[in-house]
């Protein structure tokens, strides 16, 4: 067993984990963060995507010990002070989900995509989320959602600029 210290969705945890424990298993089984799900065993589907120190990772591809000292944000910690993240809102508004199983990972990956590229084209969005599989939507409404969130986040960013 190895001891890790990790902050998840704003809460500090100190835990013993098996060296082989994957981050996603740690999140789900030890912390009860079951909002993050497992869709495959080959790192293809992206359903388990979370943010580790601000960047998207597939939490099935990270060992829990690698998160030691790190800060993890899951889908459960994305909304702030009871307000949905613009990406969550956009997925709802644009009907970017059906069964919703891929949605936590899809949203976390999309947030990271906009962090790197705040104003992506449709092609850039499609390529940016190609590590996340959805079986229900055919992706079109997910693309729309990311575009809408990009617009909203750009709007609020420029609004902040103006205030300054």
């Amino acid at each position, binding site marked *: 067993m190895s001891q890790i210290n990790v902050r998840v969705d704003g809460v500090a945890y100190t835990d013993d984990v098996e060296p082989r424990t994957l981050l996603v298993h740690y999140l*789900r089984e030890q912390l009860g963060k079951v909002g993050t799900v497992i869709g495959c065993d080959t790192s293809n589907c992206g*359903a388990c995507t979370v943010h580790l120190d601000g960047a998207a990772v597939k939490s099935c591809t990270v060992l829990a010990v690698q998160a030691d000292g790190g800060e993890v944000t899951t*889908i*459960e910690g994305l909304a702030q002070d009871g307000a949905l993240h613009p990406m969550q809102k956009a997925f709802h508004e644009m009907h970017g989900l059906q069964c919703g199983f891929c949605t*936590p990972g899809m949203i976390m990956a999309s947030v990271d995509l906009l962090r790197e590229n705040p104003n992506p084209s449709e092609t850039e969005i499609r390529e940016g989320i190609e590590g996340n*599989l959805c079986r229900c939507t055919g992706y079109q*409404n997910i693309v729309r959602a990311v575009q809408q969130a990009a617009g909203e986040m750009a709007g609020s960013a420029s609004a902040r600029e103006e205030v300054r």
Partner: protein
Amino acid sequence: MTVTEEPAVTQAPPREVGRPRRRKEDARLITGRTTWTDNMVLPGMLHLAVVRSPVAHARITGIDVSAARSAPGVVAVFTGRDFADEQGSIPCAWPVTPDMVNPGHPSIAVETVNHVGEAVAVIVARSRTAAADAVELVDVDYDLLPVVLDMEQALADGADRVHDHIGSNESYRFVFDAGEAGTGADTEQAFADAEVVVSRRFVQQRLIPAFMEPRAVVVQPQGDNYTMWSATQVPHILRLMLAMITGVPEHKLRVVAPDVGGGFGGKLQVTPEEVLSLLVARRLGKPVKWAETRSESLMSAHHGRDQIQYIDIAADREGNVKGLRCRILADMGAYLRLVSPGVPVLGAFMFAGIYKFPAYRFDCSGVFTNKTPTDAYRGAGRPEATFAVERIMDELAVELGMDPLELRRKNWIRPEEFPFTTVAGLEYDSGNYDAATQQALELIGYDELRAEQQRRREANDPVQLGIGFSTFTEMCGLAPSRVLGSLSYGAGGWEHAAIRMLPTGKVEVVTGSSPHGQGHETAWSQLVADTLGVPFEDVEVLHGDTSVAPRGLDTYGSRSLVVGGAAVVRAAEKVIAKARKVAAHLLEASEEDLDYSGGTFSVRGTPGAGVSIQEIALATFAAHNFPEGVEPSIDADATFDPVNFSFPHGTHICAMEVDTETGMVKIRKYACVDDVGTIVNPLIVEGQVHGGLAQGIAQALYEEAVYDADGNLTTGTFVDYLVPSAADLPHFDTGNTVHEAPGNPIGAKGVGEAGCIASTPAVVNAALDAVRHLGVRDIRMPLTPERVWRALHDGGDGGDRATAGTNAYGGAQTETTAGVSTPQSALGGDR
């Protein structure tokens, strides 16, 4: 109770049906507050892991579980022998012919294994990891048997057999002959008299439903009661079947489908793992969980499609179709599961599509092979039928030198001919194929694309452009119970709903339909809001738990809205009828003088006198002032059994670029216009079309379950089984025409499968249209760059991804000689 001077609701709320309501379901799904089965943790819960056969066909000569049993954390290890007397057989609810052979399907192998991935032992441990570790410690001795993989070889005389105890590899032979049925002319005569006959052999490759949420089961024993949570589409069917096969009485079983992450037919099943979880929980008296890995899912959850189709079409020189003859080999895999044999039969009546064939014959053999069983996958039988007819119409057009759309137009049912009884005996309800086609042509910019195609041809551009059509219909709204009975299906096709009026005026809607992504909570709320005149927000939809929704036949076959939604509307109408008596009493008026609108009863000719449904609900709860002899309840339930299927239709057009140098294909544009009847929620309808398109296009371009010559699934992970990503799919331009389904209380026809059924042939027809002038006459699905390149440069249909001797290999090239019967096509049988 209180009769107000003014009606509580002064203004009728806007009509909900037709509004793009954002979904109620989303709130929990976008925040991770979900109830997937694998999220469940119960005190004392044990974890199951399944040891699976690594060989396709063998006798089990010994299993040594001693090392596994003594591994840390392992509570028990069971093999087939431990459950042989109580596991029964996985049920098959659809004996499609009286003499269909069902070899029986143990949940866990006892004597032999018949496909890779079949369960041979179950580990029970205190943790998921302890169970997984112990899987490696089970030692099984197998005495290998010959592996049967190719359907055509499997039917040959003297072929090796999948099941020793049955006489052949043929489970059944189902024939529908329109001449014999009296719904059409003599097919043999039609072909004998025909001026033109075109024959083709099409391969419907094996697919995997690949729902995103892997399957999971939790079972909790409580005394002699059992509660099962399962990632299933069919909690009601599952409960009934578990009771029948395990002997746990039905009233001692509760089945819950919590949040379920997609199904697409893949969770329309009673699975070996569900049975095993129940048996282990019963044996140990402890709660257990089984949750599969993706690799397990791809290997052992049922597959779909997998047909070889010999299609003959007869016509005259002017392009009037005269007959259609279909000889189908349908791969059942190693066993018959819930509706395995029925899947091709669901297509049997749809091969004629939207065309007025005077003669038709369908002849299908269900064939056993040493592969994972097949069963329902989005469309189930109808995509296979639609592909065959839409591909053969293109082939006939080429043979006749006609425009493929012109040929279709010449033969399809005219709008004024509805209702139209087809050569297969179905009564198509309504539609206008011309209107949908016109709209789709405009949507895609047809003339400009044809002009560009011409330019590229003339310039000998390495990237050629093709345009493909699919003008399709499907049968939805499964199903009229009497029709199912006539097809020997083991259950009816009705759906149940109940409405409970709560004292505060809020409404609980109980539906027997069991959603897993479709948006029932939203759409049903819209239906009830309109029918009852209550606010959308005041409606709560309950489902997926046999103790909450006690009657139901669940979700599949585009039936939820058409059948389940109709039941909801009928239940709401009954609530109003019951409330009318109470209103008349409270308003001291006669029932006949009451109008009901916007949630309020008012007295005709007496302005201002009214009582709302919410007030009646409270008055009913108190029951202080109630009409004599009337029970104090306005709750109601309804069971809706449709009198006919519904027939959505549409026109799908694909424009495809084919790079003749690399074989790469790319969808340039995709446009479709679907007629699904009344649209309750346009957002949800569009989403269903998008998702269906993605899966239909994936069959055409990406997905194929491939077995090697030993029967190993070589596409057993998402690395090898190509579920398309956002980058692999185009933008879709979608539209609708609306012809209400006559006889349906909502007017809806069903939309869940449309995109998946229609798109596959449009895509393949488009690719072929791009390269026919280069001598390519067929390309096998999926159209991988390698296959396309080979078809372009080596001739043939692009060949195989699999080893020779397997079905995916197919054994021979696609027959491409029009009108000539070859040994290859004759292998299909005696026609």
